[in-house]
């Protein structure tokens, strides 16, 4: 679960960076950056799940 969380965190960051590099329109860039951020939040949830008793 922790490994999956870490991989999701990395994947979210790649989405964020890709959005900054590839998209020019402020709206689409913003949407994809926040989508990547959302993926990171999912990764954090997964990483924390193992700890919650």
């Amino acid at each position: 679960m922790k490994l999956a969380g870490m991989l999701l965190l990395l994947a979210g960051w790649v989405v964020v960076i890709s959005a900054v590099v590839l998209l020019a329109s402020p709206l689409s860039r913003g949407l994809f950056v926040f989508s990547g951020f959302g993926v990171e939040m999912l990764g954090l949830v997964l990483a924390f799940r193992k700890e919650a008793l």
Partner: protein
Amino acid sequence: MNPPAGLVPPTYFILIFLVPLAVAGLAIMNTGLGRTRSAAHFMLSSLSSVALAACVYVLWGFSWEGVSGQVAHIVFLGGRPWDWIATDPFLWHGLAFDNSRVTASAFLQVFTVGLAALIPLASGADRWRLTSSLISTALLAGWIYPLFAHWVWGGGWLSELGTNYGLGIGFVDAGGASTIHVVGGLSALSVVWILGPRFGKYSTEGVSAAIPGYNIVYVLLGCGLMLPGWIALNAAGSLLFVGTPAGQIALVAVNTFLCASAGCLAALATTGVRFSKPDASLCGNAWVGGLVTSSAIAPFVTPGVAILTGLVAGVIVVLSVEFLEMRLSIDYPGGAISSHGLAGIWGLLASGIFLHLPRLASTGFHPRGQFLAQVVGIATLLGFVLPMTFGLNWILNRFHVQRVDRQGDLLGMDLRELGGGAYPEFVVRSDEYTQR
């Protein structure tokens, strides 16, 4: 956003001389939040971590960080330059040791890297072996901190988001909310994940037991001691890293104090409402949370906004400490993940929301995209720095177990690792005494 190179007045160096007060204050505060049976071990760990961090940073850490405008490894993505890592000589051989901005930046960070090293130490208190904490500190000071600091302060890609992609003035962090505190807070989270909770903290049903700090006077004394050091840190950082005019240093100092004050008052009110009586240790943590938030926003906002952000930081610290400890079973005695990590992230977001630069307004500057630049920076901290920090500490744990053995859990770190306690004249609890 990168300030111009050149010479700086000697007063900048006087500010830097005061920064160790923040380090000392944080060490004293975190010792007070721990237990008597590990107090000597914690203070020794703090001192040796600060010492090792400084040595490692000078030996090779600064080489990866570098300064804006010097030689670095650059890759081109989408036709635009992305500055990833510096290539300065090891052992500060590239420094002139004059009163240049480069020398002042390097000098300041010999202390700030030690401040970053103290943050995970507090979260691993009472169970983190001295040798393990030192190796982890070397990883933090020699690789993690310099790499991210290069991206923010050394002319790296985050600071160039404005120039390359029109995102405001790029990711900004004047006093180290991201480079020092969020990096330290995420390192603390990684260490806590690897070490697990203290013995006796959680029952088999997952119910959390209160292990209060042994000396609240130390906690609050540390808070007071931190203030001048933090004002100096924010002032020096603002002057060196974001080019704040020297005439605005009073604003930086006032905003720093206001943020901390508002954070403390917010915690006073929040804990008073939630627990019927104010909680001194949480108020201390919220004071630190306010200071951390100020590191992100101090040169960019008005005093009213500083109070507002400090109030929010105080509430975030109180609620997150409870949530992480009770709901997620995260045992971190010093409160670092909340007061450094989460408060730092809030400060970085707040600087994206409230950024106001009077000196740029006359040039037609509009901070459009600034919030997005800050979000990209935070996403980098969570999506790159956290996995890297966790991965490095996980690998370290495979070769050198980081947690003390069961005997250390029972005896305390002072007796297990040092052979003597911090207070040999006093026996507070029978299980803390062993015949020697």
